[in-house]
C-alpha cells in the first residue's frame, strides 16, 4: 500500500520520559465546582417549577378549576379576564415594537457604517435598561394624560392597556431590534451584492432580498418580544388598570396576569391564604406561556440558522 521500503531513520533511544497520568486534585475540584455552577442554572429552573407548581396545585385543590378558567368576572379567581388584559397590552406593545424595532434593525444592519453601529446599537439598547417603574411613571403622568387624553383627545380611562402597551412597546424595541439585526446581518453579503449588481437600489435590496431571507429570524424576534411583553410587571401594574374586564376595548382599564400577581403581593396576603396561592396558579400559566413562546422562538432561530 505504501512505498515504505527504506531502512528507517535513527530512532529515538535514551531515558524514557515519564508520561503516566499525574493526579491533579486541584484541577478536578475546580472542574467539579464549575460544573456545579453550570448545573445550578438547571436547578434554578427546577426551583422555579417547585416554587410555582406546588402552591398552584394547592390552589386547585381548594378552588375548582372552573372558577379559574372562566370569563365570569364575578369569580375572584377568573383568569380569562387577566388573559384578555395581557393580550391587549401585548398586542399594542408589539404593534409599536415590531415595526420600529425592525426599522432600527434594518438601519443598523443595512445602512449604518461599522463605526456608527458601534454607538447606535447601545443607544437603542438603552431603552431596555430604563427601569420599568420609570416607564410606568411616564405612562401614568405623561403618555395617558398628556399624549392620549390631551393631544389626541381620546376619551379613555386614566389607566388602560393602550397607554401601558405603548410604553411597554418602547421598552421592548431593543429586544426585537437586537434579534432582528442578528438575523438580517446573517444574510450573506453575496445576496446583497447580487441584487445591487443588477441595478437594484439599497431599499429594494433591503426589502426584497435581505428582509425575506431573514424573515424567520425576524419572526423569532417578534415571538421573543411577546414573551417579554407578557412577563413585564411594573408597567402594567402602574398603567393598565385593575378591572377584571373581558372587553376588548384597550381604552378601558384591564387587569393583567402580572398585574394581579404584583398587586396582590403588595397587599401582603398571608402565605397560606387561597388568594396568595391563586397568584401561583396565575404565575404557572404565565411561566407556561413565556416558556412556549421562547421555545417557539428558539425553534424558529434554529431553522433559519440552518438555511445558510
Amino acid at each position, binding site marked *: 500500500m505504501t512505498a515504505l521500503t527504506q531502512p528507517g531513520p535513527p530512532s529515538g533511544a535514551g531515558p524514557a520520559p515519564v508520561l503516566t497520568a499525574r493526579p491533579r486534585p486541584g484541577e478536578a475540584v475546580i472542574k467539579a465546582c464549575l460544573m456545579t455552577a*453550570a448545573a445550578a442554572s438547571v436547578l434554578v429552573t427546577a426551583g*422555579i417549577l417547585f416554587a410555582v407548581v406546588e402552591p398552584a396545585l394547592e390552589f386547585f385543590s381548594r378552588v375548582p378549576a372552573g372558577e379559574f378558567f372562566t370569563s365570569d368576572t364575578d369569580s375572584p379567581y377568573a383568569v380569562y379576564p387577566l388573559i384578555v388584559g395581557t393580550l391587549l397590552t401585548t398586542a399594542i406593545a408589539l404593534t409599536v415594537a415590531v415595526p420600529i424595532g425592525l426599522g432600527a434593525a434594518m438601519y443598523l444592519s443595512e445602512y449604518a457604517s461599522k463605526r456608527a453601529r458601534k454607538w447606535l446599537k447601545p443607544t*437603542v439598547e438603552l431603552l431596555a435598561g*430604563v427601569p420599568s417603574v420609570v416607564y410606568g411613571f*411616564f405612562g401614568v403622568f405623561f403618555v395617558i394624560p398628556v399624549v392620549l387624553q390631551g393631544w389626541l383627545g381620546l376619551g379613555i380611562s386614566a389607566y388602560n392597556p393602550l397607554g401601558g402597551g405603548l410604553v411597554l412597546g418602547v421598552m421592548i424595541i431593543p429586544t426585537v431590534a437586537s434579534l432582528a439585526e442578528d438575523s438580517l446581518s446573517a444574510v450573506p453579503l453575496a445576496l446583497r451584492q447580487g441584487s445591487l449588481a443588477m441595478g437594484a437600489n439599497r431599499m429594494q435590496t433591503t426589502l426584497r432580498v435581505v428582509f425575506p431571507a431573514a424573515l424567520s429570524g425576524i419572526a423569532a424576534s417578534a415571538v421573543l418580544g411577546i414573551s417579554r411583553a407578557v412577563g413585564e410587571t411594573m408597567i402594567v401594574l402602574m398603567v393598565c388598570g385593575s378591572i377584571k374586564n373581558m372587553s376588548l376595548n384597550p381604552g378601558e382599564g384591564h387587569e393583567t396576569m402580572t398585574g394581579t400577581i404584583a398587586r396582590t403581593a403588595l397587599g401582603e396576603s398571608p402565605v397560606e391564604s387561597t388568594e396568595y396561592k391563586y397568584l401561583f396558579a396565575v404565575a404557572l400559566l404565565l411561566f407556561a406561556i413565556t416558556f412556549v413562546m421562547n421555545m417557539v422562538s428558539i425553534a424558529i432561530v434554529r431553522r433559519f440558522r440552518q438555511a445558510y
Partner: protein
Amino acid sequence: MSSAATTAAAVTTSTLASGRSQDRDLRSLAFLGALWFSLFFGVAVLFALIVDTAISGAPRFDSALFTQYTQTFDPERAEALAATGRDPKDLSAAYTGFRSGIVGSIILMITTALLAIPLGVSAAVYLEEFASKTSRFSKVVEVNLQNLAAVPAVIYGMLAATLMAVVGVQRGIAIGGAVALALLILPVVIITTREALRSVPDEIRQGSLALGATVWQTTWRQTLPSAVPGISTGTILGLSRAIGEAAPLVMIGFGAINFAPEFPFVTSKIEAFPLEIFNAASDSKEVVQQAASAGIIVLLAMILGMNAVAIIIRNKFQRSW
C-alpha cells in the same frame, strides 16, 4: 453590434448621468426616513421622558434627596412644629429623600454582584472551556439558559420568596432581594461571559495547551484575562438592569424603611430605590411626586452611567483579534 447593445447605448446617454441617484428617489428617501424614525423614536421617547421628568423634579434637585429618609408631614404643618424646637426640614414632605432606597440599592447591587458574578462566570467557563459542546448536558443547559432569560422577573421574585420561606428567614431583608436579582441576571451574565470567552481565539488556547498547560491553567491565565472586558461589559449591563428592577422585590416583601441597615447588611431589612420611587410616585402630595421625579432622574443617571461605562469598556478595551 447587436440591436440589444444599440438600445442600451441609447438608453445609456439618457439615464446614466441623470444627476440623481436612484438611492435618492422619493421612495428610497421615504424608506430611509422611516428607518431613521425607527432608530430615533425610542431615543426620542427616552428624551421626552427625561425632560418631562426633570422638569417636574426640578424643585427637588437638592442634597436632601440623598440625605433624608421618607418624610410625610404636610409642609405647612411641619413649619408649625418649628415652635416645639424641631427643624421642619427634618419632617416636611417637601424635603423627603431617598436615603434608605439609595443605600438599600447599593447594598443590593453589591450582594447581587457577589452572588451572580462568580456563579455566572463559573458556569460560562465550564460550558465554554470544559464541557463538550455536543454533550447532552451542554445542550440542556443551553436551552435552559435561553428559557431562564425569558422568565418574567416577578417569577424570580416568587422563587426567591419561596426559598426564603423554606430557609425560614424574615421577609424584606437584603439577601432575599439579592437572590432574586442574582437569579434574574444570571442568564445575562452567563450568556455575555460565554460570548466573551468565545471571542478569544482558539490559537491562544492551543498555544497554551501545547506547552503542557492544563485546561484550567489555560483558562485562568490566558482565556479569562483576555475575556475580562467582555465579561465586565455584560456584568455591568446585568447589574444596571438589576438596580432598576422592582417587580421581584415586591414579591420578597420589600417595604418602606426609615432607618439605616445594620451590619452585616445582608440580613438587614432594606428598601430599594426603584420601589421607594414607586411609593413616592403613588403619594398624593405633589411635593412627594416632585421628589419621585427627581429620584427617577437620579436612578436614570445611575443606570445610564453604568451603561455608558459598559459601552466604553466594550468599544475601547475589547480586543478585536
